[in-house]
């Protein structure tokens, strides 16, 4: 990161810096951080893409419009396929979720930019919100019938309490695995990228032999950057798909 330092610190990129203070509320210091800034940037970009993409409304879409339309129809098909017609009520939510995660992931790939989704707080908050929504929707739509999610049919009565307990733990593990996966992917990818890039700097300082040796890490860095682009898109997609799947359980617990 810092050009002045000799050794590259791969963790430095995840530091949260206060940009300006917003004052104290209830004894807690509130500040506008770089993380918050990039969340705003991501939301602003999504908004700009959809606003300007849909403003021309031409029959033959231009570049921006077709990107916006592709994004829209991609998520629309996803929601429609997993949740069906009644699930379209959740389309705005899942679209926002996907767009937010996708844009923050991609923004993090730009050098010197902060990766919002590499913070467990962010992914955890998203996952907890999703699972709370699943619980609320499940009870609102099915009443007590939602609890049949934890009672697989065909289990002998003696084993039922045991199996139900396991099912409940497996349900509670969902938000944890959801948030851990996104967080882990982004964190690990960025650290690996930074470590390999650090090798280049370290080797280049050794003179002519080091320059030749630095070719290896340089190629790796390029390759990992490409991989990270794939991971960024893929994890946003997986996040959205799993949200759909969990919501499906809320709508139809007995399946």
């Amino acid at each position, binding site marked *: 990161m810092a050009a002045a330092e000799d050794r590259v610190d791969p963790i430095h990129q995840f530091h949260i810096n206060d940009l300006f203070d917003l004052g104290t509320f209830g004894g807690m210091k509130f500040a506008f951080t770089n993380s918050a800034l990039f969340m705003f940037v991501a939301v602003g970009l999504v908004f700009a893409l959809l606003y300007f993409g849909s403003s021309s409304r031409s029959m033959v879409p231009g570049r921006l419009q077709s990107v916006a339309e592709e994004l829209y129809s991609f998520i629309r098909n*996803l929601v429609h396929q*997993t949740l069906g017609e009644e699930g379209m009520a959740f389309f705005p939510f899942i679209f926002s979720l996907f767009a937010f995660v996708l844009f923050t992931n991609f923004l993090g790939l730009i050098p010197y930019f902060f990766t919002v989704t590499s913070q467990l707080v962010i992914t955890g908050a998203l996952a907890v919100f999703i699972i709370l929504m699943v619980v609320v929707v499940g009870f609102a739509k099915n009443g007590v019938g939602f609890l049949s999610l*934890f009672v*697989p*049919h065909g289990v002998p009565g003696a084993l039922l309490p045991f199996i139900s307990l*396991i099912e409940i733990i497996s349900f509670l593990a969902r938000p*944890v*695995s959801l948030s*851990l996966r996104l967080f882990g992917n982004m964190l690990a990818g960025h650290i690996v990228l930074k470590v390999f890039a650090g090798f280049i700097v370290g080797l280049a300082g050794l003179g002519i032999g080091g320059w030749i040796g630095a070719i290896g890490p340089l190629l790796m860095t390029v390759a990992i950057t490409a991989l990270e682009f794939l991971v960024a898109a893929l994890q946003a997609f997986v996040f959205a*798909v799993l949200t759909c799947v969990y919501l499906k359980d809320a709508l139809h617990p007995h399946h």
Partner: protein
Amino acid sequence: MAREPKLPGSADGGGPDDGELARRLERLSQKLDDEKREQAVKDAPAVDTGNAALVFRFASEFVAGVLVGGLIGWGIDWALGTKPIAMIVFLLLGFAAALTNMVRVAKAAQAGVPVGQDMPAGDEDEDA
């Protein structure tokens, strides 16, 4: 869409009769249905997630299950003062839950279901 073949009814100047029209309509709707089905298959968000996504899936499923089980046990211990017992029991239960989830993911992966469409809770009893 492919163009319709020339119809015998319309060739001799007079309009096609009702039966011919009905058949044409049927053929057309058949074709439309096929087209729609193909389109639906094409539109399916079929992302080749590859094995890397699956690996992460397993890892996070496993870690999450054990973690949640352990945390619940720890919480019960903390609340009831039964120091190590609940944590041990729930760690094992969490392990079981993690394995259940992993088996579900693996089953779905073997069946070729794309990542994410898998894991409806409590479905493995149907084919067991």
